[in-house]
């Protein structure tokens, strides 16, 4: 019975499946193959050897992961309290808050990123306010360094964390918290023993999503990094468009894909343990 139902469903998803395989999976496999197979030369591991010989590419990958981690932590630190605060609002307040969080999605990433230049630049709003209030004498360098990239990425990716987190938080039954309180638990204990564990799966999923998106971010580091924050996508752009060494780019992309899948697998393991 279940089996036939499954097969019935298959008819409906077949078009999507075909589209995914043809338009998405096949190019990826081709891209992965590029690093191993060269026209007229056959199988080669040369490009991976090249990767090992030039540790600079691996260091760029390491740098990318470090910045992605920082941006993810920044997102969690800002996003968790925000989602929690939104939960406490009334019906109308929630609607407005969700709209404000989603709003940036309607504006192009490019525009949002350039907006930060207006806000954080040497002659920007923040620096003028700081100097006017006498807190600083010289402009503070917010842009064209890791700080700028982190701020930009945190801004762009915040909705990816806040929305799933908020959805999980409003599902938490208030009576659970009340039960804990009636048993004499102080607010701190209620939060850490009841509330936080219930939000943890959504937090982990949101943080993972943000981290993975950070790994492949291109526009924001390119503009707000001022060329001083090497990240893997920018390196890939050079290898694909300028040099053009697609084989080397393919080897690096494969590595990036493996790292991403490994992180995802680790998350699944933790998630399964948590829900078991």
């Amino acid at each position, binding site marked *: 019975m279940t089996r036939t139902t499954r097969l019935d469903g298959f008819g409906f998803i077949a078009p999507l499946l075909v589209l995914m395989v043809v338009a998405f999976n096949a190019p990826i496999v081709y891209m992965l193959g590029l690093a191993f197979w060269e026209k007229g030369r056959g199988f080669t591991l040369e490009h991976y050897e090249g990767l090992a010989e*030039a540790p*600079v*590419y691996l*260091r*760029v990958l390491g*740098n990318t992961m470090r910045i992605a981690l920082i941006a993810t932590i920044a997102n969690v630190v800002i996003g968790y309290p925000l989602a929690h605060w939104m939960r406490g609002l009334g019906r109308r307040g929630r609607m407005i808050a969700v709209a404000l969080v989603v709003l940036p999605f309607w504006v192009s990433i490019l525009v949002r990123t350039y907006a930060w*230049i207006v806000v954080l*630049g*040497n*002659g920007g709003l923040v620096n003028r306010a700081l100097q006017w209030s006498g807190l600083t004498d010289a402009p503070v*360098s917010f*842009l*064209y360094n890791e700080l700028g990239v982190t701020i930009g990425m945190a801004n762009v990716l915040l909705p990816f964390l806040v929305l799933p987190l908020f959805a999980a938080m409003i599902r938490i039954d208030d009576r659970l918290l009340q039960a804990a309180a009636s048993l004499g638990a102080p607010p701190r204990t209620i939060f850490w023993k009841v509330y936080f564990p219930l939000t943890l799966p959504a937090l982990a999923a949101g943080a993972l999503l943000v981290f993975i998106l950070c790994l492949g971010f291109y526009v924001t580091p*390119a503009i707000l990094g*001022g*060329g*001083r924050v*090497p990240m893997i996508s920018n*390196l890939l752009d*050079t290898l*694909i*468009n*300028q*040099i*053009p*060494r*697609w084989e080397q780019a393919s080897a690096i992309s494969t590595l990036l894909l493996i790292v991403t899948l490994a992180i995802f697998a680790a998350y699944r393991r933790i998630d399964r343990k948590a829900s078991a």
Partner: protein
Amino acid sequence: MKRRTFVGTAAALPAVGLLSGTARAQVKEIRMIESGGKSGESIEVGYIEPFTKKTGIKVIRESPNSLGKLRALVESGQTSTVLMELGSGTLVQAKNLKLIEPIDWAAVNPAPMFPEARNEYGFGYQYFSTIMAWRAGAKAPKNWAEFFDTKAFPGKRCLPDFPHYSLPFAVMATGVPADKLFPLDVETGFKKLNEIKKDIAVWWKAGAQPPQLMKDNEVQYVICWSGRVVGDPAFGYNFAGGMADLAYFSIVKGSKPEDRAAAYKLMYEMSLPANQAKAATVISYTGPSPELDALLPKDKLADFPSSKQNKSVQWFQNAEWWAANGEAVNKKWEAFKLSL
């Protein structure tokens, strides 16, 4: 369209093209990939308009023009795009990768051109320079040693995030004259850049960045493309010691013969000084005619890369050297960027 039909048509077309002149006249449009922006507009105004008027053939422009795109075009076996704009460095790379084909110069039959613009594989259609510039009011450096002297000339710098645009100037700052620049002493260049890296606020990738950053007062000194700063009172600039370079149009490998015939006619239009003068009203980059100076506004000669007064104080990019060493230098460049 089925792939088989498509390939069949493409294979049949050259034969038709060879058969008769009338078939050739049936070309209604050709496609080019160029660098876009104002440069694209200048091609439209200067060369495409007179070409379309004479031949009735439309030209469809596409951008941007990365080398990766050319590789994808050729490797996928496309035949629709005939012209590709390339830099001097990418021209040599594309030639080595067999992505472009030699130009039939007899078919182009151009008006007189500077010799370096007449390349076996490329029609050098546009001179552009990479020069030093500064925010108006900043102390003006006279040479590269001064430009790299951040004590005597305090201020933030903005340099190209491309080794082939930044390293030669760093080497010149150590006193190496332009005619002894190549083979490039890469280590010396990196040493010089390391000395002042704290004062380099931004490494630019897009040509629009340096003038904007100077206007925002984020940086005071830049190395940038001449067309972005000349004629603007907000900036000072100096062509002396600058790098002259050429942008080329090349014939994409596998393109149709009748498209090529049309492309050669367009190249002929590009060789006419009167058309080049028209293009120069849109952008401050100049065409390859030695007779162009006489047609340009006298008061603007100082702004153009190939005017006699500017051409003589600049040196030429060594594309062959970069084609042979570019990838190795690029690895060092990435390592250098990680140390910032």
